[in-house]
């Protein structure tokens, strides 16, 4: 109802651009259709133009729509656009309809903006025989231009699905996007389909996230049965009216939604798919497994924040899972050999921060970290891609080194990314977002001191693993000769993202440093501001900031001490039996894979292989019994008259005997 009024108001005020909203997801979808149907017949240039252009156009329209939206912003906090009725029965009415507010606009801007940069990067990264040969192991040299078109088709489909997810007005449409991004993730992880391991990684990603998705779906069933609606806004208003805080229904629905979010966002205990997902091409890792899709869980929880507020116990669990994931993943990131796996674990860890923020009720802080993370992590992946590209598909950091002078542009951009991730104070975006989260963890009534200490330890580990990676790759002696810096199409995204990784942090300056809360003011129309416990004034905040700064710098310093000069101490440490065991344990992701293998995968395989068709065997044995009975009976048909006479006589006697009794 509200939304209809809103759209009518809209017509009156004459905002033309907002009506183009539907084009934002439609353009990448059109790009996908074009590439999927005619990709084989287009030249490489045309494929790149379609693939890149559709997302670029979507980004452009996002800018127009965004400008239009912000012009009347605080007065008109949301815009609703109904395209058609999707399901329309007497009990359920669900539309294909978009909902734009501050939160979804932010997500759309990130998806289309960063999406476009990554598409641009892919034009060069994925093109040409040389590049295909470089960016993937043997076997896909034969990957011709159909592969090129296929890549951009999947990428466009992903962008369309992700935009559907963030713009959806109801949970069923959101679920469509949710499954759609999962599908594209599957297709792109397994992009080089000739490698069986890549296929296995892709399947693992899809199936593990589908476990979460199924929980999410059950949550939808309960929600609908209870409230007879699936509209995101309506459901939350109704739930807040109908369910008291902490009621069973609210808790169960929140838990089920949380499980869905854990699967998509690779948080404990459904995190196992993300490191393997690095099998996909590097731009895929940057777009899907760093900047956008894996943060869908964060978006879901932020979107449904009223529901989670009804279940404080679940919110606490969110914070704990976030903390646990961020620490476990940080430890694993410390010991990886593969450059992309380091980044994968770091992504998990950074999303852990976002979950932590959501859990302590710092909704805006989580979204702010999402924004900065999208910039610096996409940057790190793209820079890593540039390294991999120039080293002829080398991903092992122990065979890299000394690339600082050979690849200066890559080095500087990577440095900016690593600095932002570690939170180098004042000049990087990561500092502002992480500082906000830690301050919230200190000051929120929903938090505990130990959560804050854990998160502080996390900043130290982040600095340590980020700069370990940097030092291993770009300092020390040269182990593999690079072929040189990439071309323009790859350079531009790197530079733009490096610029963003520094500057987006200034959108939210804390009270102690300029006091310019643009970002939280912008989101305050959707997400409530964080509560603080009394007595949290500026001086406390400054102290917390100093602690965070110190901890991050300590981590970086430690990395410099340990890894800059030849790293002999670390090698010796890892050489001890305890060190070796720890390295293996952490490198394998804390044994989760082995645990699931033993607890779920093997029993499952056993069940399917051994079970066979019990019921069918029953029926078949009936047939066998009938047949043997007939064989037995037909033996009496001997053809000897004497035998027949004897049986007649015996039969007559038996009958007589029976009658006589």
């Amino acid at each position, binding site marked *: 109802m509200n939304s209809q009024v809103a759209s009518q108001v809209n017509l009156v005020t004459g905002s033309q651009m907002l009506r183009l909203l539907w084009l934002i997801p439609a353009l990448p979808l059109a790009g996908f259709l074009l590439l999927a149907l005619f990709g*084989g017949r287009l030249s490489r240039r045309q494929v790149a133009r379609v693939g890149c252009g559709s997302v670029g156009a979507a980004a452009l329209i996002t800018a127009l729509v965004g400008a239009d939206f912000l012009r009347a912003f605080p007065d008109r906090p949301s815009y609703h656009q109904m395209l*058609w*009725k*999707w*399901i*329309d*029965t*007497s*009990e*359920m009415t669900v539309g*294909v309809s978009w909902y734009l507010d501050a939160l979804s606009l932010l997500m759309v801007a990130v998806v289309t903006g960063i999406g476009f940069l990554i598409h641009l990067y892919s034009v060069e990264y994925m093109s040409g025989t040389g590049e295909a040969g470089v960016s993937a192991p043997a076997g896909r040299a*034969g990957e011709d231009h*159909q592969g090129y078109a296929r890549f951009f088709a999947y990428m466009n489909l992903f962008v369309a699905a992700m935009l559907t997810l963030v713009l959806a007005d109801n949970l069923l449409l959101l*679920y*469509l996007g949710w499954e*759609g991004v999962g*599908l594209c993730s*599957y297709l792109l992880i*397994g992009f080089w*389909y*000739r*490698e*069986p391991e890549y*296929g*296995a990684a892709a*399947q693992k990603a*899809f*199936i593990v996230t*589908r*476990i979460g*998705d*199924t929980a999410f*779906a*059950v949550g*939808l*069933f*309960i929600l*609908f*049965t*209870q*409230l*007879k609606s699936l509209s995101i806004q309506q459901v939350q208003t*109704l739930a807040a*009216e*109908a*369910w*008291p805080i902490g*009621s*069973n*229904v609210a808790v169960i629905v929140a838990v089920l939604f949380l499980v869905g979010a854990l699967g998509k966002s690779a948080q404990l205990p459904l995190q196992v798919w993300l490191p393997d997902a690095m099998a996909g091409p590097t731009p895929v890792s940057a777009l899907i497994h760093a900047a956008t899709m894996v943060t869908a869980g964060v978006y879901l929880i932020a979107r449904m924040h009223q529901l989670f507020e009804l279940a404080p116990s679940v919110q606490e669990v969110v914070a704990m899972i976030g903390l646990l994931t961020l620490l476990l993943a940080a430890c694993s990131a410390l010991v990886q050999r593969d450059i992309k796996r380091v980044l994968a674990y770091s992504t998990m860890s950074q999303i852990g921060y976002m979950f932590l923020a959501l859990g302590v009720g710092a909704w805006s802080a989580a979204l702010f970290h999402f924004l900065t993370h999208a910039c610096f992590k996409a940057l790190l992946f793209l820079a890593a891609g540039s390294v991999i590209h120039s080293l002829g598909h080398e991903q092992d950091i122990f065979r890299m080194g000394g690339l600082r002078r050979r690849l200066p542009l890559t080095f500087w951009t990577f440095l900016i990314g690593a600095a932002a991730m570690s939170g180098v104070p004042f000049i990087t975006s990561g500092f502002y977002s992480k500082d906000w989260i830690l301050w919230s963890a200190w000051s929120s009534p929903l938090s505990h001191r130990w959560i804050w200490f854990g998160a502080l330890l996390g900043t130290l580990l982040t600095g340590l693993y980020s700069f370990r990676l940097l030092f291993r790759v770009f300092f020390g002696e040269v182990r593999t000769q690079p072929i040189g810096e990439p071309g323009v199409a790859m350079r531009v995204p790197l530079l733009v993202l490096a610029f963003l990784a520094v500057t987006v942090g200034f959108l939210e300056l804390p009270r102690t440093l300029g006091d310019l809360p643009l970002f939280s003011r912008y989101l305050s129309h959707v997400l409530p501001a964080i509560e603080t416990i009394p007595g949290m004034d500026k001086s406390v905040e400054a102290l917390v900031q100093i602690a965070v700064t110190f901890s991050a710098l300590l981590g970086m310093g430690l990395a410099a001490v340990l890894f800059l000069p030849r790293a002999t101490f670390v090698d010796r440490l890892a050489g001890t039996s305890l060190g070796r065991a720890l390295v293996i344990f952490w490198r394998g992701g804390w044994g989760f894979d082995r645990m699931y293998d033993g607890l779920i995968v093997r029993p*499952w395989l056993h069940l*399917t*292989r051994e*079970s*066979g*068709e019990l*019921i*069918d065997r029953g*029926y*078949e044995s009936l047939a066998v019994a009938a047949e043997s009975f007939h064989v037995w009976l037909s033996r009496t048909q001997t053809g000897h008259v004497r035998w027949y006479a004897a049986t007649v006589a015996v039969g007559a006697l038996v009958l007589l005997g029976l009658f006589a009794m």
Partner: protein
Amino acid sequence: MVLWFLILIPLLAAPLAWMGQQWSRHAARWIAIGALSIDLLLALLLWSQDHWFQDSGQGSWLLESQTSWIPLWGISLHLGLDGLSLVLILLTAFIGIIAIIASWTEIQTRVGFFHCNVLLALGGVIGVFLAIDLFLFFFFWEVMLVPMYLLIAIWGHEQRRHASFKFFLFTQAGSLMLLVAIIALALLHQHATGRPSFDYADLMGLALNSGIGWWLMLAFFIGFVVKLPAPPFHSWLPDTYAEAPTGASIILAGILAKTGAYGLLRFTIPLFPGAISEFAPIAMGLGAIGILYGAVLACAQTDIKRLVAYSSISHMGFILLGAFAGTELALQGTVMQLVAHGLSTGALFMLAGALQERLHTRDMRQMGGLWGVIPRLASMALFFALASLGLPGLANFIGEFLVLFGSFSAQPFLTILASIGMVMAAIYSLAMMQRTFFGRQRETRIAPDLSNIAFGTLLLIAVLQVWLGLYPRPVLSTTMPVMGTLVPPAPKLTRPPSEFLPSSDSFARLRGKPRLLSREGMQGVSSEAVAKENRLRRGVAEESSGSTAACLSAVVCYGGWIKPWISTSHVSAP
């Protein structure tokens, strides 16, 4: 009259197709396609009269035709068309054409006779969808069986004899039960009114005592479920689907399975409302078991056609779940699932047949890496594998989700169990893709990709899948009036009119304990009202927690020994 045309066109074209063999190589195929196209056009023409669907009241026929046949026994040639039968006839004609296109290159021996059998079987199916005299219905039910048997026995693969026998025995045993139950109904009608009748409308009005009603319902249920099929009556299906020629597999999965579902919706549920309300939890339990059982076994298969066959059992579980849930949402989902499954499984069998034709094997262990060799076929297989795993935006998703949404309020536990099937569907569908099309190429094979005609056909099915997945209203609004009549009348316990609160007691049912209203939650409501509501709610909760226990135990001791439990569960009894 137009209804008779629908049935007679394929039946009369059948001998023509047989003779056509002599005229030219493809004459039989073209005759068959022509006959089915006319049927399809006729049905589309009927469908386009959409004012019907708005004007017609619930439960009335859109078109009806009645001629006396054997008045002594109360048998007449009575046909009736409503939204449900119309949708299924559309599906039948469409899938029939697909089946003929799919057999274009595969069937090279006795071409005329093959198409004669196809047309006879489809004519029988359309008759089944239209007959509303039970005797006539049974006649058509048998008409479709024999040609199907011949199709498998003559043109099937290696184990065709075994498979066709099994198919025949199972379905015939089911038919026998059906026949006995139909005759019993007619006699009961004679007993009650003095004259026998096989007419649907007459039998609907028949008051049955609960004992007889229960047994007759069971016979009607088993007779139809064998066709569907659901465990434990499913074991003919994997053999039959795998051994049948491609065209027959498509017809079996795409159309014949639907006759079972149709029978449940048209006869079993409306004829025995009393017995159904007791039996529904068991039927839904069977459905949930079918979903999981089919999915687990699908994961174990190495034969690609058997995999699709088991996935079919899994999908049919949703039909059973939805048909007996007793909510309009679930029933509408059932119809959608019927259509969606027909399209997706038909396409998958067509693809499997194309693979077998090229590689001369159905064993997925012999395949791998075919994406690079036959990209068109592979991408189509990917699309339909995704449809089969229930990807949102495609028709199967609508069917499955509406069923699950609709069933949750009736049987939360079973619905959650059924949802697990979604994970398993992902496992077997993706495993199929991985083993067949991805991975390393086994050997350098040069196989031709799909022909333009086959590719175009599959593309058309894909478009239909997307269309129904994003805009299912045409189907849903057609069947809405029919499905509305199948919803049992609301339970006697009228719920308090307060807006959102009452539904939470169904949740309390899930948890097995009643949740009472707290005073804080009801600001502004007088304390008497709260107390009254709580009293009411306690009543609901006690009753329903009892029925939950009964349902759970029904699932546990599923196997036929459930009768004593059932008597305690009357959650949806009028």
